[in-house]
């Protein structure tokens, strides 16, 4: 009796939280289908529904070239994702499995560096990129997003640490090289953490605004969606483009949603079961 009452309270709290969470998303989706223009309406459900916002988003590219921005973002995210994943997993594996001088110190330095927010280095990064003549380019963005990724090795390293060392040793005696052990033994066993790394390193550049805005400046051509969508909210555009902005926001969330749906089945527990006694 007491338990079910407790459960009821928990469910009520969860429901309220759920509604609070879902409401803004619903609202954006509603707005994206709204027929009447204007930024703010005193009502939740639109008076008329239309697909025109979505069509215009891609069709009209004189003022805002959304399809270009979208492909920019996709390129940057995919490349950063591949590079970052490679960096993170390599560094994690190295820190977890290889023993070399300065290993502990390097891990500590990484920890301390990780405490500073990335945008502290923003201005310096901007000038460095300018020095190389690659500011305002997609390459610059890819470099910025992926090159620091190796510092975020802690989670994956923690996971690798849980894989028994005797597996590596068995593979070593079986004739596998370090690289082979990583590819054929460690990685297949680390699917959850590899997927986690992929998802996070795809999402970070996909949704980043600060670095993109500093590096791209006024280069409209090379804008990412975050920058582009935000520029729709400037004073002179906001009234006529607000619903289109909402449509853009919905589009932007689609790749991430797809990524999650595709990868969530890999988050399987107990993947190491049966390898060693336990």
């Amino acid at each position, binding site marked *: 009796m007491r338990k079910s009452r407790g459960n009821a309270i928990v469910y009520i709290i969860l429901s309220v939280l759920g509604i609070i969470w879902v409401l803004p998303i619903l609202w954006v989706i509603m707005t994206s289908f709204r027929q009447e223009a204007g930024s703010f309406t005193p009502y939740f459900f639109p008076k008329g529904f239309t697909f025109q916002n979505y069509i215009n988003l891609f069709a009209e590219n004189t003022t805002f070239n959304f399809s270009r921005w979208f492909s920019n973002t996709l390129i940057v995210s995919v490349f950063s994702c591949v590079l970052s994943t490679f960096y993170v997993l390599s560094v994690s594996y190295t820190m977890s499995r290889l023993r070399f001088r300065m290993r502990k110190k390097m891990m500590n330095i990484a920890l301390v560096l990780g405490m500073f927010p990335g945008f502290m280095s923003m201005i310096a990064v901007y000038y460095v990129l300018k020095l190389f003549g690659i500011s305002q380019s997609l390459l610059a963005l890819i470099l910025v997003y992926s090159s620091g990724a190796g510092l975020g090795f802690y989670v994956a390293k923690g996971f690798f640490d849980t894989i028994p060392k005797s597996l590596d040793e068995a593979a070593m005696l*079986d004739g*596998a090289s370090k690289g082979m052990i990583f590819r054929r033994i460690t990685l297949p066993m680390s699917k959850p953490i590899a997927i986690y790394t992929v998802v996070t390193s795809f999402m970070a550049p996909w949704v980043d605004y600060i670095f993109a805005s500093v590096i791209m400046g006024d280069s409209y051509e090379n804008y990412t969606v975050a920058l582009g969508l935000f520029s729709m909210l400037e004073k002179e555009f906001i009234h006529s483009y607000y619903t289109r902005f909402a449509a853009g926001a919905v589009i932007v969330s689609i790749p991430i949603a797809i990524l999650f749906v595709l990868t969530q089945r890999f988050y399987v527990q107990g*993947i190491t079961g049966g390898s060693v006694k336990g």
Partner: protein
Amino acid sequence: MAGIRLQNVKKIYDKKFTAVHDFTMEIKDEEFIILVGPSGCGKSTTLRMIAGLEDISAGELYIGDKLVNNVAPKDRDIAMVFQNYALYPHMTIYKNMAFGLEMRKVPKHEIDRKIKEAAKSLDIEQLLSRKPKALSGGQRQRAALGRAIVRDPQVFLFDEPLSNLDAKLRTQMRTEIKRIHNELKTTFVYVTHDQTEAMTMGDRIVVMKDGYIQQIDTPQNLYNNPVNLFVAGFIGTPQINAINCKIDKCKDKLCAIVGKYAIEIPKKISEEKSLDKIIGKNVVLGIRPEYTKIAKDGIKAKVVISELMGSECYIHMDIGKDRIISRTSTVLDAVSGEAVYVKFDMEKAMFFDEKTGIRI
């Protein structure tokens, strides 16, 4: 097929801690060698040095005639069975066994043939398509054995392979491993802390303690002629009785004085060991429980507890400060606290130096 030669092999960790001191021994081809000792004695470290998983700090290691100090583990042509099986969890048993062969670029049909053969001999044919998770402990250890066998290595290394199994399975696997050794006719080096495993499986046993070799000998010799008190105590269950005593003269013979009792030492032993030179010295008398009998007269002892093992009975007793055990086949209902008399079969007595523990 190859023998192994260890020449003054040493393992020093972090320039401070020496795990293995001057390990020198020659392991013959096709020999079954057991490294045994309490935990932390350096037995596993020695095995891992042979495998190449640990660097050798000093000394030389030969497999066959080849110096392998700086040869990578994969090029040493050895296979190892780990205590925790170390099967690759994401691969089927078949893939597990094939992995090492694939790495060595063995042709596919050859791999298949070898795996089928090994699986048949280990009776795991029906498990080949399963993953390790779906196997019981015993089956996993068989699979791990199979993975080693298909490689056809010169030397097999076992790092406490049976410690994770229950008692019944352990006995079963013991005979299994022994059978495999007879079939394969390869050199086996086997690490264990279980002296029963050591006694039943090994051709020769290396007893280690604190990184030093104590004795290398056949099981029977270790039991009958231990070089020191440690080996005497480590080999044999229940443990050898160690009784503090003093060598003294009584009439024309020598005696071991235990408390107020004088136990005559047979002439043969006292002459062989020239005990007359240490008259008056305190020594440790070692005598196996099966040579310690409950009798009508003899040394008075107080029963602490008696353990009934079915076919035999262990009676724990106190003589003065020393705890001794008698192993008898007759069931004796000794109540704790009861006073009994014990007699030693002094023909089987051993004497050890009181301080160093070295056999006299």
